[in-house]
């Protein structure tokens, strides 16, 4: 019986065998290898790096698939981080803890800045459920407003990148300038407990590391769900021929806004986990430099690869820690050179190198072992 080609084409499998292997490998490294090899301090450091990989993951969707380069992802990382920090700070500022202040019960930096009552927008952050909701919703709304305003007016490409960068600069200036409400340049520090649970101990760091890893895997799976859906293919199509998509009856702006919002939510989850693991949040994670660094993580890992983004983040940060200890002045030049080298020589980053040189060999071996698989569409995002 001859079957027509199309009758064999089903929905893409959720993940192809190689992708399951990649996920298993990543999970094994995060949940087994690193916790066994590293001491509590180093593991906490890796946990901090992994929070950046949420941002890189969002950039893969937004920039890699959708072609929307945002140089302001620090804004969303920072929003997530600050919202979480507000909750933790309020908990750390109990009347008991702050009785030496002129106004007990408010965060110390407010007291130093002659603020005598908790500002209205701080008040809801005494509730943990509200805070968690806010971490997810506020950055999404902010991204929605920016995205709608820009993409409806067909602002894209370099102009969009510049505007996101300007927003990162503005938010930094705002946070630094409004010291009484935000903690200013020092950020929000001296965070102690999460719903009564001390987050400064080694065991808390350990638990938070695993929670962080679990959230990262969940975000990867959701990103994978988007990637393999028709929406994922529309993002690729839009990057390639925006007008063709528009004249196929799609509202291009809505799809771009969705990708941008999703990237924002991922970044915010990373930011909230950063605050929990590192114990403070400051404007130095919001501005232009961290935002660009986060783009470099995605570029080095491979902007088309969900897993590559995580590996790229870990690798660049490992290199940063190693080299900046030995050559503190040279490190930033090294980072810049790395970015240029990757873009020029390996535009698809580590994942691209893997796909060109390693995967074909692996696939041949795997194919030799297993019977011929059912025909599925070769997925285009490869």
């Amino acid at each position: 019986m001859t079957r027509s080609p199309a009758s064999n084409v089903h929905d893409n499998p959720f993940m192809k065998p190689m992708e399951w292997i990649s996920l298993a490998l990543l999970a094994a490294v995060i949940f087994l290898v690193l916790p066994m090899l590293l001491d509590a301090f180093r593991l906490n450091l890796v946990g901090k790096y992994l929070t950046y990989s949420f941002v890189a993951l969002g950039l893969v969707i937004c920039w890699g698939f959708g072609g929307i380069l945002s140089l302001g992802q620090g804004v969303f990382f920072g929003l997530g981080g600050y919202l979480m920090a507000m909750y933790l700070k309020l908990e750390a500022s109990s009347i008991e803890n702050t009785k030496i202040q002129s106004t007990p019960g408010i965060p110390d930096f407010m007291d130093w800045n002659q603020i005598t009552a908790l500002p209205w927008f701080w008040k809801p952050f005494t509730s943990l459920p509200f805070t968690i909701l806010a971490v997810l919703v506020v950055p999404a709304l902010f991204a929605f407003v920016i995205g709608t305003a820009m993409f409806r007016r067909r602002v894209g490409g370099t102009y969009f990148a510049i505007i996101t960068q300007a927003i990162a600069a503005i938010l930094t200036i705002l946070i630094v300038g409004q010291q009484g409400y935000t903690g200013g340049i020092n950020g929000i520090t001296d965070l102690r407990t999460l719903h009564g649970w001390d987050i400064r101990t080694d065991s808390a760091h350990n638990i938070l590391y695993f929670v962080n890893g679990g959230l990262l895997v969940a975000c990867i799976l959701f990103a994978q769900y988007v990637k393999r859906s028709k929406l994922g293919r529309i993002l690729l199509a839009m990057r390639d021929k925006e007008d063709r998509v528009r004249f196929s009856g799609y509202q291009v702006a809505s799809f771009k806004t969705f990708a941008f919002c999703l990237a924002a939510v991922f970044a915010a989850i990373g930011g909230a986990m950063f605050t929990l693991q590192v114990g403070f949040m400051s404007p130095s994670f919001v501005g232009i430099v961290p935002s660009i660094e986060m783009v470099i993580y995605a570029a080095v890992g491979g902007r088309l690869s969900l897993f590559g983004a995580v590996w790229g983040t870990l690798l660049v940060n490992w290199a940063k820690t190693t080299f900046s200890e030995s050559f503190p002045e040279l490190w930033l030049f090294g980072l810049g050179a790395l970015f240029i080298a990757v873009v020029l020589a390996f535009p698809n980053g580590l994942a691209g190198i893997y796909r060109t040189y390693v995967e074909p060999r692996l696939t041949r071996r795997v194919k030799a072992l297993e019977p011929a698989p059912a025909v599925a569409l070769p997925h285009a995002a490869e």
Partner: protein
Amino acid sequence: MNAAILPSHLIGADPAEKNFLLAVEGLTVSFDGFKAVNDVSFYVDPNEIRVIIGPNGAGKTTVLDLICGRTKASSGSIKYKGQELTKLSESAIVLAGVGRKFQTPSIYDDLTVFENLEISYPRGRSVLGALTFKRDAQVRDRIEEVASMIFLKDQLLERAEFLSHGQKQWLEIGMLLIQDPELLMLDEPVAGMSVGERIKTAELLNEIIKGRSVLVIEHDMKFVEDIAHRVTVLHQGKVLSEGSMERVKNDPKVIEVYLGH
């Protein structure tokens, strides 16, 4: 002047009231004072293949851009089945039933032929719809049907970037067909095609005309003669002549500006 090219029984009646699929009237667009399209009127019947010809810079592509909403008209009206298009967004115009093929093949290189057609399949066009879109039998059958019409049945799983130039043109026509538009606009569909491909394209157009109208821009006169029901000649943004190919070919004004050299 424009009244003269209307069929005589329509003079005096409001043309938009008649059963035209598309009624373009007094259409003008100016770019910084330059009128690329200047007071153009024409009417397309249901099931008609209309070809627009004219020298370079005559405003042919701009007319298509105006109809599909890519360019906004300075004045005039475009009525499609009695509905004013000049006020609608691009996607709303597509949903109303107008499909547009671009001059250079505009397909998604990174996707397979199947995926290219699938994106144009008229379902799941919202963000949520696209996220939950399923490839069911209906989608597969329709894609297969269109793929065999556009001679690409055996290339369904190939990446579109590996298709020949002519196949890319067909793929884009297929992407429009799958939307099932009532008005199909094609900008130079046979440009760059081999003779064999041209003949197949003419067959294809005669096949897909059933139940829809086609508005074609083309330079290849042999091809125009093969397919056109009626021809509109544009020159410097204005309608120079209109009618059957036979009539247009013998129009001294047309010979002067276009066919003569």
